């Protein structure tokens, strides 16, 4: 799904050269839930920015879902971001004066979908995070946890191949953080590929693989708690996985 080989990212100021990523290599397979941890300034966010095509890299090779991203033009990179990647940010990054519906609708606008198709996808995504009835609300009328669920719905609406989450529970209290993590786990249980940057060691232990970044380099691979997903749950889109997760929850209830 994601394959980085010897990626280097160097920030150059007048006097200082900072190696944010140094020969960074990582392979993430389809269906994996990978936590990226490390001290502040270690390069976690840079990795996530490069992985999400939000930032360039100076050296190395990066392949996303079989597409080599080196040398792609802005239009092509934008299309990749739009079609293959769903972003979940720590501070939600919702536009405050847009309704929940309009916030989730945003990435779909750039896909050229018809109005009816966009409506269907937005409603479906909001349903998956349990906010279908609140589509007319403004972000300020929701709690932090609900806002993060809106951000997850926005990431899901485009049915991406991979979800990139940058400390998705960093601004939430423990209860809300738990809700958000449950949603992410459910998505992963049903086949979604997720890479999550986190400072929380407990959250890192919950996932398939914890990748530690120190000084812009990969420190170690540790598998903490295999979740024992059935091997046949593979090659689903995240959206399909989310639907399956909801169905599973209903069944359990």
């Amino acid at each position, binding site marked *: 799904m994601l394959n980085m080989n010897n990626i280097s990212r160097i920030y150059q100021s007048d006097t200082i050269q900072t190696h944010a990523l140094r020969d960074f290599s990582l392979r993430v397979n389809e269906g994996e839930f990978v936590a990226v941890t490390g001290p502040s300034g270690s390069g976690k966010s840079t990795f996530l920015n490069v992985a999400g095509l939000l930032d360039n890299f100076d050296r190395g090779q990066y392949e996303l879902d079989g597409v080599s991203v080196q040398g792609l033009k*802005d239009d092509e990179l*934008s299309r990749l971001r739009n079609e293959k990647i769903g972003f979940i940010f720590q501070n939600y990054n919702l536009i405050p004066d847009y309704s929940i519906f309009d916030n989730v609708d945003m*990435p779909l*606008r*750039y896909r050229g979908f*018809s109005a009816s198709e966009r409506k269907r996808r937005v409603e479906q995504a909001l349903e998956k995070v349990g906010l279908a009835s609140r589509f007319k609300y403004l972000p300020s009328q929701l709690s932090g946890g609900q806002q993060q669920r809106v951000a997850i719905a926005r990431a899901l609406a485009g049915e991406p191949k991979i979800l990139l989450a940058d400390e998705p529970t960093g601004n939430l209290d423990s209860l809300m953080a738990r809700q958000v993590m449950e949603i992410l786990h459910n998505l992963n249980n049903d086949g979604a590929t997720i890479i999550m940057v986190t400072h929380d060691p407990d959250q890192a232990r919950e996932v398939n693989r914890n990748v530690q970044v120190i000084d812009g380099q990969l420190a170690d691979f540790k598998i903490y708690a295999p979740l024992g997903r059935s091997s046949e749950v593979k090659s689903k889109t995240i959206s399909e996985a989310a639907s399956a997760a909801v169905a599973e929850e209903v069944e359990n209830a």
Partner: protein
Amino acid sequence: MPNDSMFFYNLTLAMQSFKRAPTLYFLIILTLSIGVGVMCANLALVNSMASDPIPEKSANLFHINMNTWPDDQPPDEPMHILRYRDAMAVTKSNLTKGSAVFYASGVYARDAESSSMKRFDSEVRATTPGFFELTNAPFAYGSAFENSTGMEIVIGDELNQKIFAGKNSVGKTLELDGELLTIVGVLKPWLLRPLFYHPTEGRAFNLTDDIFAPLETAIDLGWSIHARSSSAVNYTGIEETRDKDVYYLQAWVELADINQKPALQSYLDNYSQQLKDAGEHPLAIKNELHNVNEWLKVNKVVDQKVLAFTLASVLFLSVCIFNASSLLLSRFHAAKFEVGLRRAIGASNRHMLVQGLTESVLLGFFTGVVALVLSWLFLKLSVQFLPRLANIAVLEPKLLVLGMLLALVTSIASALYPIYRANCYSISAELK
């Protein structure tokens, strides 16, 4: 229809952007509107002054200047006014398709059949019949008089409105300074900007005349000359001027083919030479033919002060664009989070450029509307200070279109740098 929906989506985003910072956008619109409005008002004046009043034949109509003054004072320069016999000699040339010889006069006019004694001070053009065809005068009713003699007149729309409420007055009789003359033609509203057939003596922006009377009749009735005249002899009334050295008639000719101009020039020069040979004047042979636009240029119809002010207004507009650009830069800087977010979720640089341009086009539209209102106000204000501009301080439809285009161009120009800067930030930095 994805493209259509994207266009309307961008329009919606632009409106939302305006709602977020109404004061800022108000200032931007006001800044650009003042610049465009002043520019447009100036262009309206220049347009009226510099436009070709009769484009369909301006190259074929020639004003005649001759120097047949009987002594060497005034200086050896051709005059734009001719004496009666010189002007008549011009009309006799078989080189021309048509000609008009006229002078300006004035009378008091009233409806001869009316019991009211109210009289209207009226401008008169005493002219040969060829004037109407030569100037393409538009008739609403009736037609031109056919001879330079006879008690017939053609009146303009404004006088017809005043006396006959705009109705067909052909056949009616006007009392003009005590003489009864019958109306044979009524003109449609006729505005010549500039008044090419008489731009001298600062009349370029006057209205067309109220009454057009046969030349010989006006002379016989003693209707005085209301324009520049020069005389080398004493005379008591205009009726004595036909065979005297009194210069007051202007002459225009129409050539079917402008290649005939040299032949006409030779005709005039030969005529002057004959007079000189006969000892009637001592001057060098120097006659001039100017077509309509040349004649307007010779008379400096386009006010140099207005031109200078137009240049100043271009500079002022540039300052307005810089100011608007600075305001937009702060607006786009404030919106960089949204730009970053949109880029992160899939908008390309091209999407953001189109979104920014859509916003600036909408801004330009609002600017255009306000600018045209301001432009109209500037023109009204300028007429208060300079009443002579009253007939040219007009926003023609093409000026409205130009004003709107100018507003769009300035709005886009002021947004280009801010849009460029907004798209220069790295996405990850914008989202932090």
